């Protein structure tokens, strides 16, 4: 398996960081990839315009677990502006790449982040 995944990706897949939920999250998103059934829910806590915490639950392939885990490492401590700029390429770069068939995992993580950020913005704007 390590032929297809980087050592870092395998480490994140086997020892995912920041797993969990945030019941009073400031923003949350969920997505399922219909191609292979990957399922991801992401929760973020925002303080002083920075992402103070990020947690997730994931069910899916190694790519999905690794992408979710590294996404939270990229997110925690970053400014909202930086978080808005994160996309699937940021995830791929952070992992040192993924096998060609797993690129959808990075897209899944990036997609859920967009939803979580949109959720945060709409919650903040709500009366």
């Amino acid at each position, binding site marked *: *398996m390590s032929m297809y995944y980087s050592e870092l990706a*395998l480490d994140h*897949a*086997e020892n*995912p960081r920041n*797993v969990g939920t945030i019941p009073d999250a400031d923003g949350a998103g*969920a997505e399922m990839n219909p*191609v*292979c*059934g*990957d*399922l*991801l*829910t992401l929760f973020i806590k925002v303080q002083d315009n920075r992402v103070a915490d990020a947690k997730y*639950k*994931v*069910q*899916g*392939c*190694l*790519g*999905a*677990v690794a992408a979710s885990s590294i996404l939270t490492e990229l997110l925690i401590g970053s400014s909202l502006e930086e978080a808005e700029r994160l996309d699937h390429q940021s995830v791929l770069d952070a992992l040192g790449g993924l096998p060609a*068939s*797993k690129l959808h995992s990075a897209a899944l993580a990036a997609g859920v982040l967009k939803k979580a950020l949109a959720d945060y913005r709409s919650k903040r704007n709500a009366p």
Partner: protein
Amino acid sequence: MPQRFVYLDHAATTAVRPEALEAMLPYFSERFGNPSSMYRLAQEARKAVDEARLTVANILGCRANEVIFTSGGSESDNTAIKGIALASRQWGNHIITSAIEHHAVLHTCQFLENFGFEVTYLPVDSYGLVDPKAVEAAVTERTVLVSIMYANNEIGTVEPIAEIADMLKVKGKRMGRNLVFHTDAVQGAGALDLNVDHLGVDSLSLSSHKFYGPKGAGVLYVRRGTPFMPQQQGGAQERYRRAGTENTPGIVGTAVALRLAVEEQEDVRLRLTGLRDRIIQEVPKRIERTRLNGHPTQRLPNNVNLSFESVEGEPVLLGLDFAGICASSGSACTSASLEPSHVLTALGLPADIAHASLRLTLGRENTTEDVDYLLETLPDIVTRLRNLSPLARTAG
């Protein structure tokens, strides 16, 4: 428990056994002659190929000249189906096979559909069993070939080959048609009876690296009188049925490995069935929401296929790999095509159960301690993954 290396993917491949390797070695660099050459050096290789052929023929219960050596199971399946179908064109264009065949059979049939053949892919029941009556009902005035696998590589279900053969003989006689019957027996060697008359088949495929022989070598049996058009042209080898300089070491290794697998068969069957059944009984006791895929008893002695609700197969394999255990899965993520196993899909299993599958296939070297280690290791892996999932109902 301290870490062990436990190989549980014998359906994928096996290590070449020492006796086979030892028998092969002289034919690489010492007795390396081309069996078709005249001089004594080459005649030694010729003799080895002939003896290997006789060994295989004795096991299959057929004539030596009905045995063709190939590059493996895939070539055997391709050659059987294309060779028989194309040679039978004047009598019809219909082929019957099952939905759970190995891709070497399925894709060959699909390929032939481009050339005017019609193929019926018979459904199977929820255990993966093919119903002989369904085969019979599918036969038409244009049927020329039926190909049903002996035992399925993913779920281990053993098909009623002899029953299907008997039915086809009766049906064929009544219709005045030659209904040729091929079976992909790749998963059956070393576990099931390979005698072609007991089975009643006209053609049969074997793959050496599934029974502790070398990769790149296999066998195709074609009964005398069967319509057959060779698929690899070029020389007189295999009585013009399959050209190419014989892979002497591969052929020698195949014969030795097959002979030994059959000699050990009863003992290995008994022992592995015990280990298999222990896994089948014990895992659900330690991991809730587990289901067995395939038939509980009409199943290869070494095959276990389980699905764990809410858990994707690939991370299970990773967790097992890190623990020193090799296994495989029918999940989409572990296949190059990103599609879930067509076998599990044919059983009617929803995609998420197919994704959650784990296949464990035992081999002759596995022990009770190996099974103990698996039973110690697997529950924690599944629990951890369930805790990771958004769908987990219980923690732990």
